[in-house]
C-alpha cells in the first residue's frame, strides 16, 4: 500500500521550547529525555472530524439569554490555511477567554475582579469552504498571575484547532495589537522567532469592524502542511 504523506516538521525558532526558564510552570512539566523521532503513520496523519450537527456552533458569546456582556464588543475574523497557502475548510475552532474585567468563568480563577452573569467565555466555530471563520465576543481584560512579582497576562483569546491530522492539532493564543504587556509576558515570549511571535497578534481591521456596533480584528492561523512527496523509508 501507499504510505501516508507526513506533515512537515516545525521550522526552527517558530515554536516554543518545552522548557522555558522565565515561565515557571514549565520547570517540572517538561520532559528531560529527548523526544523519540518517529515518522508519521496513519495514527498521526489522520485526525478527528467534527460536524456542526454533533457539535453545534456558538458564534456569538457576547450575550447570554439576550443580555449583553459588559465590555467592548468585538468581531474576530480570519482564515485558516496550511503551510502551502491552501484553505483548511470545515475545521472546528474552539475559543475561550476571560471577561472584560480579566476574570474567567472558572472556579479556580480567584482574581479579585467581577464575574459577569452575561458572559461565559467559550465559543465554537467552523471554517467555511475557503477556510474563513468569524465570531463575536467582548475584548478580554488583562489579569494578574503569580509567575513572578507583578506579573500580568496581556489580553488574549485561547484557540483550539484541529486541521486534517492529529499531527496538526494546535492550541494557541490570540493577542491584541498595541498591548504594553506583550513584551513583558513570559508565555508570549516563549516563541523564539520575532516574526512568529508577532503573528500571534491580531490586526485591527476596519473592514471587519461593523459601524456603530463592534470593533473588528483579523487573526489568521496557519496549520502544518504536508511534505511534497511521501517520505522514503
Amino acid at each position, binding site marked *: 500500500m501507499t504510505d501516508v504523506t507526513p506533515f512537515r516538521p516545525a521550522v526552527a525558532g517558530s515554536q*516554543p521550547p518545552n522548557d522555558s526558564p522565565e515561565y515557571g510552570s*514549565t520547570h517540572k*512539566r517538561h520532559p528531560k529525555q529527548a523526544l523519540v523521532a*518517529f515518522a508519521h503513520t496513519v495514527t498521526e496523519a489522520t485526525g478527528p472530524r467534527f460536524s456542526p450537527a454533533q457539535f453545534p456552533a456558538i458564534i456569538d458569546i457576547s450575550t447570554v439569554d439576550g443580555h449583553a456582556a459588559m465590555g467592548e464588543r468585538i468581531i474576530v475574523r480570519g482564515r485558516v490555511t496550511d503551510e502551502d497557502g491552501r484553505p483548511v475548510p470545515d475545521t472546528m475552532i474552539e475559543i475561550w477567554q476571560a471577561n472584560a474585567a480579566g476574570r474567567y*468563568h*472558572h472556579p479556580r480563577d480567584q482574581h479579585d475582579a467581577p464575574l459577569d452573569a452575561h458572559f*461565559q467565555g467559550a465559543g465554537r466555530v467552523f471554517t467555511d469552504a475557503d477556510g474563513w471563520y468569524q465570531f463575536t465576543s467582548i475584548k478580554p481584560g488583562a489579569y494578574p498571575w503569580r509567575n513572578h512579582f507583578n506579573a500580568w497576562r496581556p489580553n488574549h483569546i485561547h484557540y483550539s484547532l484541529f486541521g486534517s491530522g492529529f499531527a496538526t492539532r494546535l*492550541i494557541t493564543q490570540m493577542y491584541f495589537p498595541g498591548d504594553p504587556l506583550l513584551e513583558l509576558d513570559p508565555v508570549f515570549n516563549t516563541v523564539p522567532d520575532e516574526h*512568529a511571535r508577532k503573528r500571534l497578534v491580531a490586526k485591527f481591521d476596519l473592514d471587519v469592524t461593523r459601524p456603530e456596533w463592534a470593533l473588528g480584528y483579523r487573526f489568521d492561523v496557519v496549520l502544518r*502542511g504536508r511534505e511534497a512527496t511521501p517520505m522514503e523509508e
Partner: protein
Amino acid sequence: MPIATAAQTIGPYWHLIEYPEFADLTRFGAEGEKVVLTGLVIDGDGAPVTDGCIELWQASPAAGARFPGYGRSATDADGRFRFTTVKPGPVPGRGNTLQAPHFAINILARGILTRLYTRAYFEDEKLNGTDPLLTAIDDPARRATLLARPDGPGIWRMDIRLQGDGETVFIEV
C-alpha cells in the same frame, strides 16, 4: 511560504471547553469491545497534574457517525484521566509494517507550551514485539512507559510521568 502558527499553553482555565461527555467515545453507540483507558499524570516532583487536558485519538476502528475516534478528559484532583472507548485493532505502519493496537495521546496543561505527544499500547499484545515504534525504543524500561496494564475487567492503566524517574517516552510529532 507561510509557516505554521506558534503554539501556546492551554493554561489553567481550559475547562471552559471541557465537555465531560467527550471522554466517552462510545456515547454515539459504537460497536466493539469496550475498554477503559485510565492513568495518573505526574510532574517532575511526583505531584499530580490536576489541571491537565488529555486527548485521545485512534485510527482504528475508523471514525464515523457512531464513533468519533477522539476523546478529551480532564485530570481530576488526583491527576487521573479516564476514557471509555472501543479497543483498537492493528493499523498499517510505514512500508510493509503493522502497528500493534494503540491510542495516540496528547498531554496539554499549564506549563506545557506545545502539546506533548505519546502513545498507549496494550501490555499483552503479541504484535508489540514487532511494532515499529516500540521496537525503535532500545531500553525496555523506557519502552514499558508506553504499555497500559490491566487494572480490573476491561480497564487499562498507563500513568504519564512528565519528568524524572520513569519519565514517559514522548514522541516527536
